[in-house]
């Protein structure tokens, strides 16, 4: 049995990794739940954001880079939505098309940045605080802060504003919402653009905290999808909560047993939830 300090540190790191799961899942759950698009390319986009941050960090502050990358990604998200509308791609085919896009982005990344692992050097990584016996780094707090702010912000917009009401109505029945004067096309572009912009934020957090490599794009898919499913489609806070649950349980598993057992926890959780609580989807 590991010491209390080690266990505490594990839980903490589980929370931080869970925040990143939630951040990656936010864009997915929006486009899946609201636009009926399963966007695998979201991961590739986030990594592209991470690589761009890595590339430009020599000259610019990472947060300035985010301010540049996010609007570009917003436009990319809208372009993707246009493509799906133009060719009326079905839900299952969005999965295949975005897998194709993932391959293209992955190949592009590998061509430009090679298949090697990269780690971004930056001033923020050095900032750490001591909380009793535990350590917390600034970059981890940035991830958690973004994840909380974006999830709660999106939830608030959906819950309390007219815009949110229109989006929720469109999600339930687009033609009827349109008949009542909701501009569902425009909302679709907005949601798709925002989802992609969130990928830019996730990319920044990836670059701040993790190593980047083209193969890593696929490593995140399984767990993040588990978080999205567990959180409930179209619910912005869901992936964050589920992500933290997964992250913490994985971290504890790693601390208590062999680290290679960790995936068993998250996916067994997903399977159990799919089987026993299907009514909520």
């Amino acid at each position, binding site marked *: 049995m590991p010491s209390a300090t080690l266990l505490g540190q594990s839980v903490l790191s589980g929370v931080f990794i869970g925040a990143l799961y939630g951040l990656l899942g936010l864009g997915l759950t929006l486009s899946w739940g609201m636009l009926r698009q399963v966007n695998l390319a979201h991961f590739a986009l986030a990594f592209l954001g991470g690589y761009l941050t890595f590339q430009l960090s020599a000259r610019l502050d990472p947060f300035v880079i985010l301010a540049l990358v996010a609007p570009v990604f917003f436009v990319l998200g809208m372009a993707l939505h246009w493509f799906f509308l133009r060719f009326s*791609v079905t839900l299952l085919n969005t999965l295949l098309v975005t897998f194709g*896009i993932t391959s293209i982005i992955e190949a592009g990344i590998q*061509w430009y940045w090679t298949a090697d692992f990269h780690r971004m050097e930056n001033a923020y990584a050095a900032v750490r605080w001591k909380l009793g016996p535990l350590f917390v780094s600034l970059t981890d707090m940035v991830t958690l802060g973004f994840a909380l702010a974006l999830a709660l912000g999106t939830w608030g917009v959906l819950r309390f504003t007219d815009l949110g009401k229109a989006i929720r109505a469109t999600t339930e029945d687009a033609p009827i919402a349109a008949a009542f004067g909701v501009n569902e096309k425009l909302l679709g572009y907005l949601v798709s653009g925002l989802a992609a912009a969130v990928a830019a934020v996730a990319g920044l957090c990836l670059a701040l905290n993790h190593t980047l490599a083209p193969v890593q794009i*696929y490593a995140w898919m399984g767990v993040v999808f588990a978080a999205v*499913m567990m959180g409930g489609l179209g619910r912005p806070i869901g992936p964050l909560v589920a992500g933290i649950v997964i992250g913490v349980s994985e971290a504890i598993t790693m601390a208590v047993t062999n680290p*290679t057992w960790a995936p068993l926890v998250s996916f067994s959780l997903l399977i159990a939830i799919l*089987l026993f609580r*299907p009514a909520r989807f």
Partner: protein
Amino acid sequence: MKIALAAIAAALIGLPYLGLPAFYESFGYLLLSAIVLATSWNLLSGYSGYFSFGHGAFFGVGVYTTAALAGKHGWNFLWTLPLAALAATALGVALGAIVFRVRALRGELFALLTLAITFVLATIALNAVDGGPGIMVNVDMPRLAPTASGVLYLLMLAAAALTLWTAYAIYHSRFGTGLFAIHDDEDVAEVMGVPTYRFKLAAFAISCALAGLAGGVHAVFVSYVTVAETFSIALAVNVVLMAALGGTRHWLGPAVGAVAITVLLYAFTGGDAAVAGRALTGLILIVVIVAMPQGILGQILKRFRTKTPSRAVVRAEDAPRQAVTATTGPLLVARGITKAFKGVQALAGANLEVRRGEILGLVGPNGSGKSTLINVVSGHYRADAGSIRFEGEELVGTPAHRIARAGIARTYQIPRPFPQLTVLQNIALPPMFGQVVMHRAAAEREAWRWLEFTNLSDKAHRYPGELNLHQRKFLELARALASRPKLLFLDEVLSGLTLSEMDGALRLIRAIRDQGATIVFVEHVMRAVMELTDRVAVLTYGRAIAEGAPAEVMRHPDVVSAYLGTAHV
């Protein structure tokens, strides 16, 4: 044709004996294994629409079974192959037995579940079987061919032949037709008599067995088995790509896609070309999905689709109806049926009696529970309480497909044809799963009869989406009739029809009765009810309030108040 096939078979079998460089055998092996995996995936996922992203897991179970038994414990390699298939099947059946009972687990949720299974199995294999570094698989090759790679090629050739034959046989069988119906509308398929649960489970089992078999051979081919290479998501996704590229609605489609993608990937191996190849594969995938949603083969076959019906010979003699059995007593008796949806009490102790040979009108205001009653009798919903006896057999708790087989058919108020089956295939489905099980050819002959009966003969090879509402309603009727039910529920077949179309429909319904079927006729058009029915039952608030001759029932004070309100003057 036969000679050509034999020549191809001879060439394929003869390849290892020609003394060519080993490259040809290995490349042939890769092509064949891609064909096995894509085609076996398609048996469940393409045919029945349950998209699996876990095919890599079942393949992996096969790989590890052979690796552990032959590699670690020194068993005879050939003997481990059936065990590899069996292990994968056992896993698939165990999984399916749980998953296929959950109605909500369709579409993308099933896809994710199978994806998750892959990760779980990979973790277990890594920690419990493999131990980390991987397993060496050095086995004594059976001497079937001059070289080891030749033997593996021949084994995979046999597996591919078996897989393609299975796909072909299922495609043309009753089983396959049932799977395609499940793909389009599982609930309707079940009500038409398709044992959906059993069919899905069987398709899953066969699909897993073939993947496991391929895995067993592959363990020896790679000779060094690791978890990362075996349980890769890339394999699952590649398989989906191959099938989607070739066309999932045809037995040969996945094989076409498998050859195309394998050749394409081979063309770009090594270094920078591999990167370009991946990008190109991605691009091709996007273009194909957008330009040919039905896949390469689907697109080609569409060109050859016959638009003008090649009419089958319909024999002159009238349909050999089952004689109206002389047994006395009512055909169907429902007592105290209740059904609630959360707070809403749709049926509150409804009683209904249907006599043999009659047309019973079932009327009542909107929301009175008429459609729910049909859904309960046909087994789509299970009643909360009460009993329904059909020829003495209890129907409550009986699966819907058994009820269909007992001789009860229904139409849907809003037609629910199988959208991706032709009109002819739609109508031929119920006879294959009715009281007398028919083979496909016989069922299609039967379907032609009902096509003529409903005047849809010239639309036989069209898809339901190409029909107008009136024709879709008639299709719905023909499909219900084709199973030759003893008891037929017609749910508002007249709504939305013009007056002249309505007259045509009424003539049809009389003709159906004259052939011996008993009919329950749910309708709001009172003229039709009064004209057509022998008796009328009135339902309000989930309860029958009157039953009897049409004219009498309509004067019944409760009925008048239910429809027009109570007089307050």
